[in-house]
């Protein structure tokens, strides 16, 4: 498996501001993913981030709201832009490190006031 860290682990932000979440993995991986878990809900894929190409967004998610960077094979960032209380969620990154299996970071708990 892969060891994945995320920063920050949690944050409380004001409406209208932006937050950038970092995801670092201890080995080089091709595919990284960003998920959101809203309160009481399941995990929903936001986008797939591959190094050297633009992220691929799922239906309902757009680059202007959730810009993603993937500068190398061990690192990615997700920005939540112009936040509203509806963006309060746990944001998780994952990597595909072995045989179609994804391993997840510890998550970033975001509260928007």
């Amino acid at each position, binding site marked *: *498996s892969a060891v*994945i860290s995320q920063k920050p682990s949690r944050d409380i932000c004001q409406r209208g501001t932006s937050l950038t979440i970092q995801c670092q993995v201890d080995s080089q991986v091709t*595919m990284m*993913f960003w998920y959101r878990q809203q309160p009481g*809900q*399941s*995990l*929903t*894929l936001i986008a*797939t981030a591959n190094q050297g190409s633009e992220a*691929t967004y*799922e239906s309902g998610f757009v680059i202007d709201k959730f810009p993603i960077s993937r500068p190398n094979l061990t690192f990615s960032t997700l920005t939540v832009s112009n936040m509203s209380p509806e963006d309060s969620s746990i944001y*998780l990154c*994952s990597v*595909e490190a072995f045989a*179609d*299996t*994804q*391993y*997840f*970071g*510890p*998550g970033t*708990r975001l509260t928007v006031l």
Partner: protein
Amino acid sequence: DQQVKQNSPSLSVQEGRISILNCDYTNSMFDYFLWYKKYPAEGPTFLISISSIKDKNEDGRFTVFLNKSAKHLSLHIVPSQPGDSAVYFCAASVRGGGNKLTFGTGTQLKVEL
């Protein structure tokens, strides 16, 4: 459209007994299935997976069964231990389709002494 469903939001089992968690899916294109365990304030932890070419996979106390005709899978934990108390998510993907995971809504398992 919820393509992966876990109809039991919670399950309570006595220590030492068997825990059976169920999951149903609707998309016949799914060919790889995974179970994750999630503790509060942590990211999901991979437990076990199964390919659609199999109907059973076992790893220690965990066994996953797949019934393709019924589009149903289950996770058996035996014997159940108090440390197994967590939320369990099933997830499904289409291999070669970007390996995006579609998650169920989760089942809260409580193992009582």
